């Protein structure tokens, strides 16, 4: 795949209970871009993400990942190209040991054992958790689980990383470590989050979603300076862009 482009055109999705979660979303994300998807709870972020790895197929509109339109036939290639990192690492780490979890994807790709070994080693190294190799996932700390979850995805060598709330439930130091790790990746990144301070660090572009439609799409700094827009979409300025509560009082 030459270009790791993600293109969504007029995407719509209505759940069986009648909730129109996504109502006509279009955007185009280029190779190597890091884009934040922000919005209120229930704005449609998760539904959108589920389309990007082919868990949901478009009811109307199209999704293109790289050279493939998303259809039932291409879903396998798309899942290889798009690495999805879940909000709850417990959902993602289902094997009895860290090693087996990271090897799960490469083994499914049908790679030879030496190649699997090499990929696992590289992925664990990249996320700095080689020492956890033989440990069972349920005994890891939150930060460790997150790092291993990312390793499981990296072992598939995806072109695009899609993340749902990567910094939730992490202590500040683990969060910082994670942000630095993500900043070092050259993949195309799509991050759905409420952690707007992380967005400043990682994403040059932000898409604001409100009630299933795109409210704004543009450079992160522009969006975070538009107070009216932020208020309308249930957001507020990242803490770092707010006045200091102590010095600004007088």
């Amino acid at each position, binding site marked *: 795949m030459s270009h790791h482009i993600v293109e969504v055109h007029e995407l719509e999705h209505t759940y069986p209970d009648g909730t129109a979660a996504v109502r006509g979303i279009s955007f185009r994300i280029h190779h190597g871009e890091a884009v934040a998807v922000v919005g209120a709870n229930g704005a449609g972020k998760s539904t959108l993400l589920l389309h990007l790895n082919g*868990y949901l197929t478009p009811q109307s509109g199209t999704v293109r990942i790289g050279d493939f339109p998303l259809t039932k036939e291409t879903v396998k290639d798309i899942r290889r190209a798009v690495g*999805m990192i879940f909000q709850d690492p417990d*959902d993602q780490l289902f094997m*009895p040991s860290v090693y087996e979890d990271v090897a*799960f994807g490469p*083994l*499914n790709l049908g790679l030879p054992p030496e190649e699997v070994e090499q990929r696992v080693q590289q992925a664990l190294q990249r996320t700095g958790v080689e020492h956890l190799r033989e440990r069972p996932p*349920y005994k890891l700390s939150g930060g460790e689980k997150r790092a291993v979850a990312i390793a499981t995805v990296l072992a598939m060598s995806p072109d695009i990383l899609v993340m749902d709330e990567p910094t939730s439930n992490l202590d500040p130091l683990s969060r910082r470590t994670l942000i630095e790790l993500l900043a070092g990746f050259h993949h195309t990144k799509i991050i759905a989050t409420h952690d707007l301070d992380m967005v400043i660090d990682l994403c040059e572009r932000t898409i604001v979603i409100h009630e299933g439609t795109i409210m704004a799409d543009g450079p992160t700094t522009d969006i975070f300076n538009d107070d009216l827009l932020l208020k309308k979409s249930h957001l507020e300025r990242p803490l770092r862009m707010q006045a200091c509560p102590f010095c600004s009082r007088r």
Partner: protein
Amino acid sequence: MAKIESAFLDLTYLDRLATGDTVIHRLDPRVKVVIAALFVVCVVSFDKYAIAAMLPFAVLLMIIMGLGEIPAGYVITKLVVTSPFAVMVGIFNPLLDQQIVLHLGSWAISGGWVSFLSILLRFGLTVAAMLVLIATTGFNQVCMALERLGIPKIFAVQLLMLYRYIFVLLEEGQRMHRARALRSFQKRGMEMKQYAYLLGQLLLRTIDRGQRIHLAMLCRGFDGTIRIRQNLRITTRDIVVFLAGGMVLIVIRRFNIALLLGNFITDLLQ
């Protein structure tokens, strides 16, 4: 509440025991699984009034526990906690079977009591054997061994997943229980009806999680088979232990060692 929490700690404790490094721990899991199964089959195949003939099995188990450095207190506590099931199974025997089979001095003992005791002993031996197997092998290794021994992969994977998520499930249940306990005062809010809601809620959450896990698997190219890494290797030592262990089990099952020993001692005394 304390019960759920201690059950949780218990599993971790069992896991910790399994990381030990003794003669028993080092044996190939397959050997241990087969020997443990043989042990159970031998014990349950005894006649319904058998008691003395089973005692050599108890001795054998104690030797293995000693070698594997499994604390006896732990195993006994587990047996006591689970014993109500066995008691329930056997409790009617003394009522149904009142024929006197044994006289201890002036005390007549009915067949029912003997078979009840026999049931308890069988229960104790088999459950303890399984505990010792897991405590010296680790649950995951037991599953791997089962898979290698030819049980359908789907069962092995089910067991592995069960063990992986039992911790998550327990934690979830614990949180819900705590949330409810904190808002119940005296006995109110703790009735059976609330338990039903709690369980229903837990089931729904579990289904949701199951769906998310499945999605996570699909994202990484899951195609219906789970590939488990196998690193089990049988050595000559394993084969020797297997043959010797199997032989010992068959011999003590075939011959009533306790009786032979008793006769031998009475002969000597005379």
